[in-house]
């Protein structure tokens, strides 16, 4: 920056560079990358939980041959439940971690940039508000679930290999163990669960949090939680009914028609076809789209706080 260093390369007077043609998807791609730069907990949190699970599983390994041995004497359904238990705990914990990260991310992604005033920098670049909001939404609806799925898969593979080694060493049949687990079915079931529950069913939830994040000037968490709570309380007092509260509970617990954690293990896993015909799913997706558009519009008007 000092004037006497003008002769240095790179400081030659601006020979007009011809603008490169930037494909329309590039601002979107880089907007997603920037979210991953800023919110490293998107992948660090599930990874940390996975590490803890693998570490904890080491202590279970000693008793594993005994557990598996007694499981082999059970009927097939109970046998499978017993064998799957560590895998389900691992998947459940990682999904839970990912869900919590999602909530914090959704609440901060449009609020944080206004609070730290960096929104003025982001808006000085040729990236539209809609692109920015859609990039943030796709972190919630694509990146986070994909990372959670991949880390779960990795963790389960490690657990499976550790178990197999221990069982093989103690003389039990590893093949029988694998056959009892049905890893491929388990994996498809998990993928199905991620797509239906964590993406499609939770979409309106995330979109609502993003809308509040774009709107509130302070305490986005309170603004996200208190109004729905107030509506539910009002309904209970005024009409003695609980439809709204019921709706919210159903949304949080994954919906009775969604392919839930236990449902995915049913042989007739294809309740998915039932799921896509649920009106609640489509209503939720419609709401999610409306919330996201509103968030994009708000971002356009909102400056730093």
């Amino acid at each position, binding site marked *: *920056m*000092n*004037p006497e*260093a*003008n002769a*240095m*390369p*790179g*400081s030659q*007077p*601006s020979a*007009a*560079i011809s*603008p*490169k*043609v*930037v494909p329309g998807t*590039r*601002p979107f*791609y*880089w*907007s997603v*990358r*920037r979210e991953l*730069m*800023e919110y490293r907990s998107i992948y660090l949190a599930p990874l940390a939980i996975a590490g803890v699970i693998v570490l904890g599983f080491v202590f279970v390994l000693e008793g594993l041959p005994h557990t598996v041995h007694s499981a082999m004497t059970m009927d097939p359904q109970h046998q499978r439940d017993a064998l799957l238990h560590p895998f389900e705990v691992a998947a459940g914990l990682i999904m839970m971690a990912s869900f919590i990260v999602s909530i914090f991310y959704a609440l901060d992604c449009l609020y944080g*940039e206004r609070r*730290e*005033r*960096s*929104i*003025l*920098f982001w*808006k*000085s*670049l*040729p*990236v*539209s508000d809609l*692109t920015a909001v859609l990039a943030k939404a796709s972190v919630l609806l694509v990146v986070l679930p994909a990372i959670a799925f991949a880390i779960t898969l990795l963790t389960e593979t490690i657990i499976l290999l550790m178990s197999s080694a221990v069982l093989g060493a103690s003389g039990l049949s590893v093949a029988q163990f694998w056959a009892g687990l049905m890893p491929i079915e388990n994996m498809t079931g998990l993928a199905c669960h991620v797509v239906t529950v964590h993406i499609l069913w939770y979409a309106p939830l995330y979109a609502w949090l993003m809308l509040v994040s774009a709107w509130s000037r302070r305490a986005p968490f309170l603004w996200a939680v208190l109004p729905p709570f107030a509506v539910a309380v009002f309904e209970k007092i005024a009409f003695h009914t609980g439809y709204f509260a019921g709706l919210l509970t159903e949304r949080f617990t994954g919906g009775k028609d969604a392919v839930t954690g236990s449902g995915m293990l049913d042989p007739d896993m294809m309740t998915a076809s039932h799921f896509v015909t649920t009106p609640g799913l489509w209503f939720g997706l419609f709401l999610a789209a409306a919330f996201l558009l509103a968030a994009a519009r708000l971002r*356009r*008007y909102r*400056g*730093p706080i």
Partner: protein
Amino acid sequence: MACIEARGLRKAFGGTVALDSIDLRVEEGRILGLIGPNGAGKTTALNAILGLTPYQGELRVLGRNPWVERERLMQDVCFIADVAVLPRWARVSQMVDYVAGVHPRFDRAKAEGFLAKTTIQPQSRIRELSKGMVAQLHLALVMAIDARLLVLDEPTLGLDILYRKQFYDSLLNDYFDGNRTIVVTTHQVDEIQHVLTDLMFMDRGRIVFNCTMEEFELRYAEVMVRPEQLAAARALKPMHERQALGRSILLFDKADRQQLAALGEVRTPSIADLFVAAMGNQQQGAAR
């Protein structure tokens, strides 16, 4: 084509009028200093130009409507809002990567060249940098963009004098090429006097004064008047009079230079002195 053209530009926040129907025309290749007291409406005007706020009236920036076409406009417009808007969590290299990713007119080698001349490390996080270094980084990013309009809103606020001087020196030496347009607001008026080609004063949402620097130098003269000639000098109707070191300094608008030379030492006033004089007269005018 004018770079910025506004007609009847108006903006009110509730009952407070921030921009009171201003008309504005900035030609390409100018360096305009927008000067005014706090709350004069400078930042509001810039925000409207940058598509950050909706407004009433007509406004064209490089032929585009900034509120409707902000995204497209930002390919040709850069701005530095103030020192502290770069994301504090980011690494320097990440910022370069990101801007290179989204901006079609960003020259990465150029930005890296500018940064190499500073003490900024590519792996540093922005929160670890001093205020002056953040300003250097932002300027390096912006100067590597081949933009047609650069808007600077208090770009050197809170920087020490060395960084401030460097900032404007690099802007003039490494960036300004006579085709680009620069609009700058600052309270450190005197530091940019030699940089500007045009000058505009704003007060209470209006443009109260507007001239080129050539006009400024021809029109205004400041005379340090010898005490015995004070009465004669006052007879020439100075627009402002102030005391410094026991001498009277009188500011004249369109006065005869030869007449003035007889009264004392004549020089071009600083923008700050003219600003104080103009604003003082404004307030007297408002009080009457």
